[in-house]
């Protein structure tokens, strides 16, 4: 069980959506094409693809090459040969049936109407050819036919085969409770075992039964006999009960509800297989092709005390070696990886903080392999206020013979805020450089203080003025 959980470790909601979406597409393709020859051809291609993959894993180069060629040709053949069936599925005008509808076969067919119609036709010796398709499509074997799509009724069905009706020579195709088309031409059987009294109508019915899973009812024009053709079998019908039973068996065993249940089981199985298929594909993508990558990620420090200030850190970025499926690794964006260090336990001064897996946020499906460096040295300081003396910073040279005897500053001190550690070593704040070169007499200069280190902030806004006294140097003229 643990192994199963580990397989799905890092499973994201996007992965679930991915699997469900693709499984549903596969399921829909099955639903739309089931019963047709296309689905068999596609299944054959899938088997060929599996053989090709097995050949690759076994190192069978020629077999793999041959399989790939066959698959390509087979795909082309499927498209060309089954173009009608594919077109009939894809050209459906009903979006519901295309996206989520489940096509029903003969489960809803009002069999009693068919029985009564057939017996009326037989009694009146009106020749008839009625086709009840099951799962397999008829498009590739049945030609022409006039679309009717009318609701099945005894009167309509009898009238189709009424003599002198232009459609009476062809076959009527029934689907569910509707007559889909009439006047359809069925393929003639080439079998030589058919009874000699069977005419063209019987031969056409047998021809279709040979090729598909459809049930074909024939009413003989000469003898008024009813014959059923299904899967190379010919059933002579002598009473309504027998006809009804045969039709019911065709529609779905002995009763319609059973048929619906079987269809539900079949569709559930198809859905489950689709889901398992894409789960397997996801596993092969996510667990297979494991790859490594290195990301340089900036460290985010969480300061519980906002008065704390980070003075220095041994590293601002940390290299993370991560692993995972190549697709996931390639999809990783830098902003998805975060390193968060909580400074709750840190104190003012130098702190050595280990960087562990708990500090690192990774996208689902990505595993952490290595952290470098795994230890950070961080110096913290707390914000304090301090009063600093102000001192003028004189530069240059006074004119010859002059001397600056006094210099005072107003205000004498200023209030600053900054890191306690930084301010601990500072007792004076100096002004910008004040030139002596042009000073010849006493006066006042407005000066700007220079804040060093730059992290400190001046709290007072008062202008700093430097008052100075200049006099002649003793012993000069």
């Amino acid at each position, binding site marked *: 069980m643990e192994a199963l959980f580990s397989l799905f470790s890092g499973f994201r909601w996007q992965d679930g959506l991915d699997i469900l979406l693709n499984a549903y597409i596969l399921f829909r393709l099955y639903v739309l094409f089931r019963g047709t020859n296309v689905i068999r051809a596609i299944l054959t291609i899938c088997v060929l693809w599996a053989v090709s993959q097995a050949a690759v894993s076994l190192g069978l180069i020629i077999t793999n090459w041959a399989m790939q060629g066959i698959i390509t040709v087979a795909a082309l053949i499927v498209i060309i040969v089954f173009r009608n069936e594919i077109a009939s599925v894809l050209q459906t005008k009903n979006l519901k049936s295309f996206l989520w509808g489940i096509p029903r076969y003969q489960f809803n067919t009002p069999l009693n109407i068919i029985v009564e119609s057939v017996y009326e036709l037989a009694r009146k010796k009106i020749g008839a050819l009625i086709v009840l398709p099951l799962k397999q499509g008829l498009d590739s074997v049945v030609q022409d036919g006039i679309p009717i799509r009318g609701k099945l009724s005894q009167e309509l069905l009898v009238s189709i085969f009424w003599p002198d009706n232009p459609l009476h020579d062809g076959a009527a195709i029934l689907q569910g409770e509707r007559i889909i088309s009439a006047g359809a031409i069925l393929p003639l059987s080439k079998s030589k075992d058919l009874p000699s009294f069977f005419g063209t109508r019987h031969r056409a019915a047998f021809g279709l039964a040979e090729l598909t899973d459809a049930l074909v009812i024939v009413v003989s024009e000469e003898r008024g006999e009813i014959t059923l053709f299904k899967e190379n079998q010919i059933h002579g019908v002598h009473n309504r009960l027998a006809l009804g039973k045969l039709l019911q068996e065709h529609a779905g065993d002995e009763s319609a509800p059973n048929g619906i249940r079987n269809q539900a089981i079949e569709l559930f199985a198809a859905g489950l297989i689709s889901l398992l298929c894409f789960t397997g594909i996801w596993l092969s993508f996510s667990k297979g092709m494991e790859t490594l990558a290195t990301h340089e990620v900036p460290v985010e420090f969480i300061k519980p005390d906002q008065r704390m200030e980070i003075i220095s850190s041994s590293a601002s970025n940390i290299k993370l070696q991560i692993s995972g499926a190549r697709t996931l690794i390639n999809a990783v964006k830098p902003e998805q990886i975060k390193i968060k260090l909580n400074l709750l336990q840190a104190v003012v001064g130098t702190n050595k903080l280990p960087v562990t897996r708990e500090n690192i946020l990774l996208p689902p499906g990505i595993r952490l392999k290595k952290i470098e460096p795994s230890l950070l040295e961080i110096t913290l300081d707390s914000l304090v206020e301090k009063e600093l003396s102000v001192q003028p910073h004189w530069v240059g040279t*006074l004119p010859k013979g002059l001397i600056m005897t006094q210099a005072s500053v107003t205000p004498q001190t200023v209030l600053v805020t900054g890191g306690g550690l930084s301010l601990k070593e500072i007792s004076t704040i100096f002004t910008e450089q004040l030139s002596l070169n042009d000073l010849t007499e006493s006066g006042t200069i407005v000066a700007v203080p220079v804040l060093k280190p730059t992290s400190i902030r001046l709290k007072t806004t008062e202008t700093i003025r430097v008052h100075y006294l200049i006099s002649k140097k003793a012993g000069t003229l």
Partner: protein
Amino acid sequence: MTIILTKKSNKYRIPALPVFFMVLGVLFTTSVCPQQANGKMVMTQAVMCESIETFRPLNPAVVFSISQGEVYCFSNFDPVVQKTIIFHKWYKRDQLIFTMQLTLMPPKWSSFSRIQLRDADKGPWRVEIRTADDTLLQTLRFSIVD
């Protein structure tokens, strides 16, 4: 940088009347001078100057040219009740460059410390005059320029 320390003690014969006025003076300044309140000493003068002549500071100033060659910190104490130690602490910006220990002898004493200037010494300086128990007596701020 060379530090040279010199000290000079002036001895007087103390007549009775001047002693009376001196005592009055001491009492008068008690409220403004803590050193005197402790009965130890009073710093009467502290200046930065270009040189010392006849135990007096010559050209007291706050800006000194490097071409001057040296700069002095002069301090004068009067009275000095007992043998006392003080310190001249020289700072360039906020960095302590050196500390000079000076001994003051009764009844009064002048003392100074000195640095010889190099090109690298240009910038703002200060000298803190402190007692043995690290009490700050005075801060002298000055600049060394071209």
